[in-house]
């Protein structure tokens, strides 16, 4: 890897925006003028942009919803490892000339299985299992990415595997993305109560009749699918941001679990759509006048939302504190 995405903008952005030449500022008055300054003309009429909005939106929704349990179960490291290991699958798929989505999902499912076998359900075995799988996976990714760079003599594949390629997703991939999204969402909605109870205490769940281990394995698989999908849009390295960031933001907003999951999904979608918009706007921005990478905007927005949610609520005391004040404690 010779250049960062910020410098070269990445092939995804250039390919996507290159098609449409670039937005021009047409004269306008009042609201139209302001709106046009934000949403550049041609934004919604652009094919790659529309695919990015659809695929990116669906993927962000799934990542946000699935990610709530990642945060509640304390599995952010496992989620990150599954995402990083996706780079192995993505680069392998590139070498074989297969759609990278299959590489991402395939390797994610295999990695989740190996983590489970090594012992991710034991509190202390968890980090070790994750670390071992992460290390082995990234070793292979280094080899595949090196071959990919050598054979094609470009860093294009490296950049798009690691940092995403939202603007070059082919329209034919979208149905596959939606099917995988429904699978991951289905697992989380179906296992909502067992997952929630085992996040509180695996013993309480076991006593209530929850098959704790199977529940954990199925969730790990759903998480692998979610980060694999996000690897396709914002990159294998960055996909944890969409998994953990919106969830960590949403849990500050409400004390109802289901509502928090919904918020998490919506925050992810908002960050993705705004990110696409800014990437499109950035076509004439310095320093390269080639557009900034969309993944940068998405991840930065996720972080900004998170920071905003950490601000103390204005003029409102938490329910527990208000009651204690009333009770004179």
């Amino acid at each position, binding site marked *: 890897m010779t250049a960062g995405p910020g410098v070269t903008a990445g092939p995804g952005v250039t390919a996507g925006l290159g098609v449409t030449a670039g937005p021009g500022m047409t004269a306008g008055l009042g609201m139209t003028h302001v709106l046009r300054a934000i949403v550049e003309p041609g934004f919604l009429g652009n094919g790659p942009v529309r695919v990015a909005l659809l695929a990116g939106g669906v993927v962000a929704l799934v990542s946000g919803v699935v990610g709530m349990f990642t945060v*509640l179960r304390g599995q952010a490291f496992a989620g990150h490892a599954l995402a990083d290991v996706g780079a192995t699958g993505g680069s392998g798929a590139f070498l074989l000339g297969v759609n990278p989505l299959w590489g991402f999902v395939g390797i994610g499912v295999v990695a989740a299985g190996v983590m489970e076998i090594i012992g991710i359900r034991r509190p202390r075995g968890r980090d070790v299992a994750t670390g071992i799988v992460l290390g082995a996976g990234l070793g292979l990714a280094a080899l595949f990415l090196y071959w990919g760079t050598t054979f094609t003599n470009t860093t294009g594949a490296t950049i798009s595997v690691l940092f995403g390629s939202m603007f070059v997703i082919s329209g034919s991939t979208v149905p596959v993305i939606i099917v995988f999204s429904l699978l991951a969402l289905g697992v989380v*909605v*179906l*296992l*909502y*109560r*067992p997952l*929630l*109870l085992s*996040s*509180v*205490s695996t*013993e*309480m*769940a*076991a*006593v*209530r*009749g*929850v098959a704790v281990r199977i529940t954990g394995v199925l969730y790990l698989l759903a998480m692998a699918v979610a980060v694999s999908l996000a690897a396709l849009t914002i990159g294998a390295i960055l996909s944890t941001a969409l998994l953990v960031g919106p969830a960590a933001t*949403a*849990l*500050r907003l*409400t*004390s*109802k*679990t*289901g*509502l*928090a999951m919904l918020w998490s999904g919506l925050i992810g979608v908002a960050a993705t759509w705004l990110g696409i918009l800014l990437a499109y706007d950035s076509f004439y921005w310095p320093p390269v006048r080639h557009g900034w990478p969309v993944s940068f905007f998405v991840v930065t927005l996720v972080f900004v939302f998170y920071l905003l949610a950490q601000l103390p609520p204005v003029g409102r005391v*938490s*329910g*527990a504190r208000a*009651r204690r004040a009333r009770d004179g404690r």
Partner: protein
Amino acid sequence: MTTARQLTGSSADMLAVDGVSVRLGGREVLRDVRFAVRAGEFVGLIGPNGAGKTTLLRVILGLQQPSAGTVSIDGAARTRHAPAIGYVPQQVVLDPDMPLRARDLVGLGLDGNRLGVPLPSRGRRKLIDETLRAVGGERFGGERVGNLSGGEQQRVLIAHALISRPRLLLLDEPLANLDISSEQEIVELLARVAAVQRISVLLSAHEMNPLLPVMDRVVYLAAGRAASGTTDEVITTEVLSQLYGQHVDVIHVHGRILVVAARGDGPAEPVGEDGAHCAVRTVPDWE
């Protein structure tokens, strides 16, 4: 064991533990433990830290397989999933960040194993409200469970265990980390639940004094062995000395009971009273 009363097999027994032994990693954690809990009885499972209390509760729950012996619930050998048992584990960490209301955790006690999201139903809401009221938790049902005080969280966990209307309630060190007034409130709450709803309560604690006013009987666990009976029968110098395998003194002071172990060459040290550390130092094979 002279004091291990042979209560097993009686038809009135809610829980019968018969000759249970457990080996973990080659070490004998429990040896031939036998006792029974009758319907509606409040029984304290007392012993120093590391005596095997949690292991014994896990065997009763079916989370740990005994190397010998049997457990029967309400006259029948325990099955893998026993809905008749409610359980409050030791030290459940409820993160203040967790978006989970107290009433939702109580609801999970009813249907936490079911698939899909819980649909709003008047019956379910009413049952949650009733159960919260029974534990004095109606005021904080809508609050984030991680923001509640230790005593309030304990009430929520008890409501979670009670909502499925179990006939046997197991609690693992529910009084640990509570201030004295919350401790007393929880003990009174559990005694009331046992009496009103006719639920058998088996509660583990390393400190027996808060339980003295409400305990019907005691199971004393030390060095992996158990003695059971009334407090007067079990908490005596003779019985506990035999259990610990060394001389201990049982001292009554101002209505409290102190169990004191004498070191071979040193001054006496309390055992039952905040006695975990002293106990481990005094009797090396207690773990």
